[in-house]
């Protein structure tokens, strides 16, 4: 199971683009990279998932370099409602799905 490392916390301002980077040096060939978002008093919510290069959906973009040893979640033009904890997970179906401590993102007005 690939271990992930991400910043404990980040602050940004409304309207800015926010990039959260996750390191996963031991990622295996079959592993996908998945990001979740968690608001206070709620369960985590799936945001985006990728295997290589770039993935974009209505919420975020995920950038994965060729060596796949890191990934960057990009949130365009954040608002106060994007204040949450963001988790990066790496693994495949054969792994226990382990969450780290995540990155606490605080958006300021």
């Amino acid at each position, binding site marked *: 199971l690939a271990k992930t490392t991400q910043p404990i916390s980040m602050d940004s301002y409304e309207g800015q683009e926010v990039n959260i980077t996750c390191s996963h040096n031991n990622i295996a060939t*079959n*592993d*996908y990279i*998945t990001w*979740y978002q968690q608001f206070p*008093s*709620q*369960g*985590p*919510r*799936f945001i985006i*998932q990728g*295997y290589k290069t770039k993935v974009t959906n209505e919420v975020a973009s995920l950038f994965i370099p060729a060596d796949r040893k890191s990934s960057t979640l990009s949130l365009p033009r954040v608002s106060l409602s994007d204040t949450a904890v963001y*988790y990066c997970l790496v*693994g*495949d*179906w054969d792994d*226990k*799905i*382990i*969450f*780290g*401590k*995540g990155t606490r993102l605080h958006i300021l007005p």
Partner: protein
Amino acid sequence: DVKVTQSSRYLVKRTGEKVFLECVQDMDHENMFWYRQDPGLGLRLIYFSYDVKMKEKGDIPEGYSVSREKKERFSLILESASTNQTSMYLCASSLDGGATNEKLFFGSGTQLSVL
């Protein structure tokens, strides 16, 4: 949308009581999971199940057991509740253990207080 329903949002129990936390999913998912979440510790996996009547230990199974008699229902059991089991408990499900790209769907959580 997948719906994962946890039976109680808040629960208060006394030390030594047997506690049942129930979780039901409505999308015929193969896999179900129980996590607990404590401030500063993130989510920690207690138990998971890839099929009916099957269970696997997560990282912190001590003091807990689980039951999966039906595909849609996964119960977490605290045989004798203790104060250090006061926590937010989160249930999750995912579609297919054979897929390499698991996506978890979570319930809203049960905040358990053991007095």
